[in-house]
């Protein structure tokens, strides 16, 4: 009986340690997924690089052009420039224009005094027919900020359909 108890206790401890260690290892960035044979960190010789570009990605320059066309009207709008209106936005969907016509928010007086500059436009395909343009804007205030534009491929070309987040 004493032997059985000892073995039982050992089993308890062993299993508890196994479960806890497994848990902690996962939290530390290890993984329990399939592991292939070590290759000393080298790529396999069959690896090839730029040919993997999707044909859909070839449309990304059009996405970028549309995003920049939209921004050429949107930045004057949010910085309170005279004459800027949602109706004048280029490459924007009708629903987005209507939404901005309804409520585009205030232009704070501090904002109107600034001049925005586009620092970078990064575009990436999200799904078929949808793309994200992440725009970094610097207006020399506290810090640059990022504006995310969602675009869709329509009969009228790539149009901005949503702003952020």
């Amino acid at each position, binding site marked *: 009986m004493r032997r059985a108890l000892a073995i039982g206790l050992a089993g308890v401890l062993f299993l508890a340690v196994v479960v806890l260690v497994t848990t902690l290892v996962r939290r530390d960035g290890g993984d329990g997924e399939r592991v292939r044979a070590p290759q000393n960190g080298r790529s396999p010789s069959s690896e090839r690089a730029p040919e993997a570009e999707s044909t859909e990605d070839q449309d990304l320059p059009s996405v970028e052009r549309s995003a920049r066309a939209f921004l050429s009207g949107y930045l004057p709008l949010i910085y309170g420039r005279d004459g800027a209106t949602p109706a004048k936005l280029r490459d924007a969907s009708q629903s987005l224009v209507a939404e901005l016509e309804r409520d585009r928010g205030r232009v704070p007086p501090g904002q109107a005094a600034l001049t925005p500059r586009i620092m970078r436009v990064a575009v990436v395909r999200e799904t078929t027919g949808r793309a994200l343009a992440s725009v970094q804007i610097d207006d020399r205030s506290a810090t640059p900020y990022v504006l995310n534009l969602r675009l869709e491929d329509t009969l009228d070309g790539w149009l901005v359909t949503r*702003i952020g987040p």
Partner: protein
Amino acid sequence: MRRPSWLIALAVAGVASLVIALPVSILLLLAGDGNCGTGAVAPQPSASAQQGIPADYLKAYMSAGEQFGLPWTLLAAIGSIETDHGRLKAPGVLSGTNSAGAAGPMQFLAATFAAYAVDGNNDGQTSIYDPQDAIPSAAKYLRASGAPGDLHKAIFAYNHAEWYVQKVLANMRAYDAAGPGSLQAPSSSAAGCEDLGGLAGTGDGTFKIAPGANKPGQNLTPELIAFVRRMASFYDGTLVITTGTNHDQYSLSGNVSDHFSGNAADFGMVLNGGSDDGPVGDRIAAAAFLAAGLPRDAAVSRARAGGAQTVLTDGLRVQVIWKSDVGGNHHNHVHVGIARR
């Protein structure tokens, strides 16, 4: 057949140990790292905050933040955008109203101020133009609008514009001494607080090139080196390039490989301490997307999803291949290639 008693005891012990250990493990997993977003209510002011915010305003922001359980950086970010902390010479800041009917350093509408006014300096009056009153009033309004639990909702209530929300979040990060100074805005809500960990943006930009990664006399281009350095600034750890120019010249399509021209780097899982399709590779891929200019949430989700993905940015075509068989085995390494457009 009679089972040995020790076998029964072992089985009981096994079940008991699982009952004890499993809840502990689940709690540990659910606990997470807890370091995402703008959670700190009392962040320390950054150098930018100390230099850019007048002392009396900084004190008022901090006091109101503490009183209403909000990060003071939220109030300072709004005060900065609205009126440059009351320093702007424009109608409606020190007196009167502007064309939108807003007034004071925090640009309240009169009706909103009346509903949320706080006598911050205890002088028996509430003035929309007095920062001692206007700042705690803004804090009260933001608290009632969802902050600090849902910052996006609260900031959007203050001004119905997405650009405004993003700019406030960016300014918050800039005013927080713990912020990495990154252009990536903090998560605006607990729900958006998705992070892989190890992407705090505190990396020092250093990386290693493994022996044999490059062919003798064929080095990586300065442009790729600069890109990898930027990746490393987002990666908490040391990145190791395991294959650079030491690679086949031609791709399957007959093009000259980005590797051969020195414009691609592979980050093998073995030397980077990861495993096939594992979280280390996710972090490396996410660092590449961040370096390419994608926002944090998008970078993390794209890294997790894997595949052959292209980002156009800064006149560059950046290609990241991970967790994919496209173009070869990309389960045991992350491929990052760039090309000038």
